[in-house]
């Protein structure tokens, strides 16, 4: 049985198509999930894609975090379902309190769009287990509100528990505390990442294919846990 990975579409999602394509290139079946349906269609994992859900009104990701699909997704994530939130999806995960902290406006006030070097710092997650610890990758980054903030105690806790999944290398593009580009929950099944691995899965369209391992990793995690067959 092939792994089935859901990709949620909110009003204003942009990268659901690319996320589904990355899922397929990694060898899983991509399943479209709709924000208005409290139904995960029995998927084995979920990607919350990038974009501007609800036009970024109120706060980025805040209205989406109250969507019907999120009510079931939050419970499933607490139960161990692998969830990857990319960019706006990371904002939705923070607003849903599945991940600590918040994403705030870039310190430069500019929308940043560039190829960004990251260092993968935790490979003990459902979404990064096929990377080498400390591996540097290059994937696109594009955000206006990507500055990760949390209080010092939370930041210390994230560091101590090995939950900083990825850090910016070379330049901190948005003022994120401690150069944090991505974090996970305690269990490692929920990961939020500001840059875009789903845009770096094919040589034709991406700067690298470094992002593909996020999607291969979740398939690996599902096979290893016995959720799906190899």
């Amino acid at each position: 049985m092939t792994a089935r990975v859901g990709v949620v579409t909110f009003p204003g999602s942009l990268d659901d198509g690319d996320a589904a394509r990355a899922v397929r290139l990694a060898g899983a079946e991509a399943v479209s999930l709709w924000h208005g349906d409290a139904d995960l269609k029995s998927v084995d994992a979920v990607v919350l894609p990038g974009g501007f859900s609800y036009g970024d009104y109120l706060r980025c990701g805040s209205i989406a975090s109250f969507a019907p699909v999120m009510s079931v997704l939050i419970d499933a994530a607490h139960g161990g379902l692998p969830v990857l939130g990319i960019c706006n999806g990371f904002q939705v995960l923070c607003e849903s309190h599945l991940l600590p902290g918040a994403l705030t406006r870039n310190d430069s006030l500019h929308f940043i769009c560039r190829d960004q070097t990251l260092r993968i710092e935790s490979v003990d997650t459902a979404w990064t287990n096929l990377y080498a610890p400390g591996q540097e990758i290059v994937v696109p980054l594009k955000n206006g509100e990507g500055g990760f903030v949390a209080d010092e105690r939370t930041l210390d806790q994230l560091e101590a528990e090995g939950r900083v999944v990825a850090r910016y290398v070379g330049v901190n593009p948005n003022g994120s505390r401690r150069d944090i580009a991505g974090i996970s929950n305690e269990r490692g099944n929920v990961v939020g990442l500001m840059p875009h691995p789903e845009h770096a899965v094919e040589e034709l369209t991406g700067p690298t294919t470094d992002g593909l391992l996020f999607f291969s990793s979740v398939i690996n995690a599902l096979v290893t846990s016995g959720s799906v067959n190899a």
Partner: protein
Amino acid sequence: MARVVVDVTLKPEILDPQGRAVQGALGRLGLQGVTDVRQGKQFVIDLDGELDDARLALLEELAGTLLSNPVIENYTLTVQELA
């Protein structure tokens, strides 16, 4: 009829780059001595009928969940009775 006003501001320790940009513009337009600018949001919520305790309690809850993010923001809630 009642009007509830919810003011949302970034917590003092959170960098406010928008406020900083406004601060710069105020200076360029001749206003001297501006030491800080913080930009916030105001929600003006008009309600039918009496604002009973149950609705006020729900409003308080929503002010701290939907209207503001307690990780980065504070809010104040003010009730104005309308004639």
